[in-house]
């Protein structure tokens, strides 16, 4: 199933806002990594629109209340892209944005991977790939057992799908009929060592999820006008009897021309001139 519903005129302003916040997240990613001197640019850039759509258009959250029990949950399987998420959490007043100015400095809470014990708004720590669909399954089960109607979103990398535990969780969540669980696969076609199909192939991906008992959707992961109605419809479909997965087709490094064409930007740092070029490209696109 693919999202077909066009965004209505009332959503136009919201879509533009989400697109602007996605670019803001990219700009902040460049700024934060310039403090750390090294980090994951390209992984964050491929999911910037997904994150912004969730946080500004889909998830039920309360400003300044990161522990509100009925909030929708977000788990970042590909936690190495956390630098792109932190600015959005600061936007929700979960913490003071100024704390990000010391990103990765000794004693600061904000590192390359998110820590729930130190960062308000992080629903679960991540870093070790393959765990988040299981922890998300636990949150969805906990919500159901306690009659709390929140939705749990889990964003997975496509390389992360190599981890066996993902498929344990895929079986388990389907077995328990967790309709309030939504997985999103950021299919940017790359892991650290190269193209996914050359490292260990995962296709046909939608068929795999379907065979595991999930409702499947495919979407352009950079097209907010498609992401927004699809993710909203999944969050609002409270009668679903099975978990849903959205395979979001994305471009690793999206937004920076030289990162889009060169997979080596999975982990890196930007020297002065490259950083200036990156910022110019991002600002020009706004």
């Amino acid at each position, binding site marked *: 199933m693919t999202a077909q519903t066009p965004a209505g005129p009332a959503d136009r302003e919201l879509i533009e806002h989400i697109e602007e916040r996605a670019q803001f997240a990219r700009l902040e990613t460049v700024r934060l990594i310039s403090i750390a001197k090294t980090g994951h640019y390209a992984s964050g850039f491929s999911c910037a629109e997904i994150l912004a759509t969730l946080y500004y258009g889909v998830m039920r959250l309360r400003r300044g209340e990161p522990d509100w029990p009925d909030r929708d949950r977000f788990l970042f399987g590909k936690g190495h892209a956390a630098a792109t998420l932190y600015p959005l959490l600061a936007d929700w007043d979960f913490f003071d944005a100024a704390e990000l100015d010391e990103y990765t400095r000794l004693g600061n809470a904000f590192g390359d991977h998110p820590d729930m*014990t130190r960062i308000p708004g992080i629903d679960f720590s991540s870093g070790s790939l393959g765990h988040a669909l*299981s*922890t998300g*399954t636990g*949150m969805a*089960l*906990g919500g159901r*057992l306690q009659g709390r109607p929140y939705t749990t979103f889990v964003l997975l990398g496509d390389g992360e799908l190599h981890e066996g535990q993902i498929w344990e*969780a895929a079986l*388990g969540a389907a077995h328990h009929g967790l309709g309030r669980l939504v997985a999103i696969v950021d299919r940017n076609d790359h892991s650290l060592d190269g193209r996914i199909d050359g490292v260990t192939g995962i296709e046909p991906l939608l068929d795999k999820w379907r065979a595991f008992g999930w409702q499947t959707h495919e979407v352009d992961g950079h097209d907010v006008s498609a992401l927004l109605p699809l993710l909203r419809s999944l969050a609002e479909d409270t009668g679903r009897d099975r978990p849903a997965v959205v395979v979001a087709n994305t471009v690793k490094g999206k937004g920076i021309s030289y990162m889009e064409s060169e997979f080596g930007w999975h982990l890196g740092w930007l020297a002065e001139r490259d950083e200036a070029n990156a910022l110019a490209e991002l600002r020009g696109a706004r």
Partner: protein
Amino acid sequence: MSVAPGLQPESWHLLSLLEQAPGLQALGDTLADLADEGHPVVVGTADLKYSNGLVRFQDRHPDKYLQFGISEQHMVSTAAGLATTGLRPYVATFASFMALLACEQIRTDVAYTRQPVRLIGHHAGITLGFYGTSHHATEDLAITRSIAGLTVIAPADTAALAAALRASVDHPGPIYFRIGRGRDPDVYPAGTTLEIGKAVEHRTGSDLTLIATGSMVHPALGVAAALTADGYDVGVLDMHTVKPLDEDAVLKAARRSRLLMTVEEHNVLGGLGGAVAELISEHGVPVRLHRHGIRDQYSLIGPPTHLYRHYRLDAAGVEAEARDLLRTQGR
């Protein structure tokens, strides 16, 4: 589950095993009691509900019971997610799979995040006998001890397990329970209580103190009685909480006794013996320590009782080990 007509009920393997395992019956029953009392308990296992007795919990609280199938890593991570929602998940599988297979999930998803998950590693040590090394767990204490923030408890018997489960309900942070196959002879009366982190000092002695954990507490008590009858002054500590170690109790024993002997159904490296060695050497207490357990090897296969005899982990074996120590170290 019923037995088909014409078959002998006692030959139905898993149910008959559970009937012989009061300790495992107590696992399911105590957790069900806690749920009855309103504690936010949820219980899960990985396709072992007959082996660990949790079928008894399922019978009483089917809505609070989670079957994970043969997915131990997924079970541990899911328990961490459940705990974030205010529930108290108790999840169980063989100790070898809990502590070794799901080690990283315990570290990263449970302990690092400080979630109040209770991990139950049952059939620990060499209790699975002839099932083989894949099912033995003689490394789990060393592994779990080294995970920051994780409490490690090895109750001595059925009553101590029930007491430890009760004590765990409101305990902050995660716990690893190391239990056997539920057939340990009774040390404590039903209804006993247990304070996490506080050793039980059964007796004190100037010649030797046996510091035992889990299944080895019962034989240690018998050995102390036999040696006392021979004129030795022997103490016994039940170190049910291996971490955090009751340092005061160990140091007191180390200062009172000429000899210490740790007894554990575990590798002598990294477990209770390791913990005691680290403590007394850091404090510079001049006492001779003998670590008794599995001496850094994979145990043989065989019936459990035969293995206990072979490795000197039954009462006679622990006594022989202690007498060797007393003899070689003089009086």
